[in-house]
């Protein structure tokens, strides 16, 4: 009888608090979005599953010596997982379009205004008493607008670990929602004529330029903003492995086995931060709303920057590629291409949009470095 009691006392059913039940549903919602809606499944499936595991009553998988907590401490608290992912992203990135048209870097700069506007918004909402975000919280939330998962996770782990779960989920969810969020903003801010602008063919870029660019980028970071060096350093390293052509076996493994392995454990570890008592706060709602705002403002600023540049240039840019400056590689570039085709069925903007797209990755990492330097 005593055993039966113990058994019943230890069941999840008996121990469950309403928050855990709700979070199990949130976990299943994430799995639904990943599997059925195909929303960034590479991250949202592990995160969703991790969220379920983390909220099993009485199992303690995301606490103490629970395996997900171990993954979190080893991989995210140390910074290793997001940095390794960033190395992998570097090895998957082609800077060719950016090198062919470097001024699109400025579009990647403009789109970062979403990050800072969101920071201002979070602080404003705190000032009027709706939420209670510190400056570090606000900075970590703002980075969602950078539309780079690993950057968001890295910054959150440094500045606001308690919000990491919500920030990561918002980040990847909105990256998946780019095809829904961006087009209305892009259409609203451009005229039909602007959307029809055709851009000149990109020149071919030599291998030497592609090899020197990551080293140059790293040097500039080293000299000007050392706090961005871990992120952009690993990114540049991955890219150099790929472009150098002398370590193909390392580059292949980085792009495949290594990034896949780390993605699985990163996702599970992030999921462990979706425990009910941490996630079910009004702050989370604030993060979700502010993250969406960050995306929208970043998109708008990218488009406006492109229009501004056209004021001073003979060589017109199609402002639709400005939105790609938020990064969300390569989704945002595809969106630019698709919206462009609506107005001009012979206008293929994809490659042109890849320039601001990867520029946005650099821009967000720089913004992240600034945040860490001032607040870290």
């Amino acid at each position, binding site marked *: 009888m005593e055993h039966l009691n113990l058994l019943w006392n230890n069941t999840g059913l008996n121990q469950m608090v309403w928050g855990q039940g709700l979070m199990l549903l949130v976990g299943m919602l994430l799995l639904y979005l990943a599997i059925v809606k195909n929303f960034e499944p590479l991250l949202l499936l592990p995160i969703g599953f991790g969220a379920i595991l983390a909220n099993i009553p009485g199992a303690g998988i995301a606490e103490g010596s629970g395996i997900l907590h171990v993954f979190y401490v080893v991989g995210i608290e140390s910074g290793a997982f997001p940095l390794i992912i960033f190395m992998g992203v570097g090895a998957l990135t082609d800077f060719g379009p950016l090198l062919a048209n470097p001024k699109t870097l*400025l579009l990647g*700069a403009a789109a970062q205004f979403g990050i800072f506007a969101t*920071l*201002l918004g979070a*602080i*404003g909402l*705190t000032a009027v008493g709706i939420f209670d975000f510190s400056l570090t919280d606000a900075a970590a939330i703002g980075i969602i607008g950078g539309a780079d998962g690993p950057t968001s996770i890295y910054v959150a782990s440094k500045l606001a670990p308690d919000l990491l779960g919500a920030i990561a989920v918002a980040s990847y969810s909105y990256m998946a929602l780019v095809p829904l969020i961006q087009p209305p903003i892009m259409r609203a801010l451009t005229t039909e004529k602007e959307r029809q602008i055709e851009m000149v063919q990109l020149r071919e870029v030599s291998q*030497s330029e592609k090899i020197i*660019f990551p080293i140059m980028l790293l040097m500039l970071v080293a000299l*000007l903003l050392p706090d961005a060096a871990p992120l952009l350093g690993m990114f540049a390293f991955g890219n150099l492995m790929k472009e150098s052509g002398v370590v193909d076996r390392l580059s292949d493994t980085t792009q495949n086995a290594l990034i896949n392995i780390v993605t699985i454990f990163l996702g599970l570890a992030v999921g462990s931060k979706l425990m009910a008592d941490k996630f079910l706060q009004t702050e989370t709602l604030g993060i979700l709303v502010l993250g969406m705002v960050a995306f929208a403002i970043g998109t708008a600023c990218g488009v406006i920057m492109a229009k501004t540049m056209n004021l001073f240039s003979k060589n017109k840019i199609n402002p639709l590629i400005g939105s790609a400056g938020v990064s969300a590689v390569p989704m945002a570039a595809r969106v630019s291409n698709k919206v462009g085709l609506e107005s001009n069925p012979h206008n293929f903007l994809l490659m042109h949009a890849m320039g601001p797209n990867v520029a946005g990755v650099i821009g967000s990492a720089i913004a992240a470095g600034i945040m860490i330097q001032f607040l870290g």
Partner: protein
Amino acid sequence: MNMEQQTELIAEALNLTLFGMGFVFLFLTLLVFVTKAMSIIIQKMNKQSHDDDTHHDDNLSLKDELDEETKFVIEQAIKMHRGA
């Protein structure tokens, strides 16, 4: 949170935004110039080593024009940002 704290917090946030966006633009603008410079140097070096190729003068002059134009654009953009 009292009035003074509020003001201070907002001031800090504004400060961070100002310096942050300023630095992002500064950095990426610098990167534009450095990248262009790098590309020009490499293309010249490549051209020297392939100087048997037919003459690309027209191409080059067009390129120089484009570069000057871009420089102009960036200067304008920085001015605007500062003025904004």
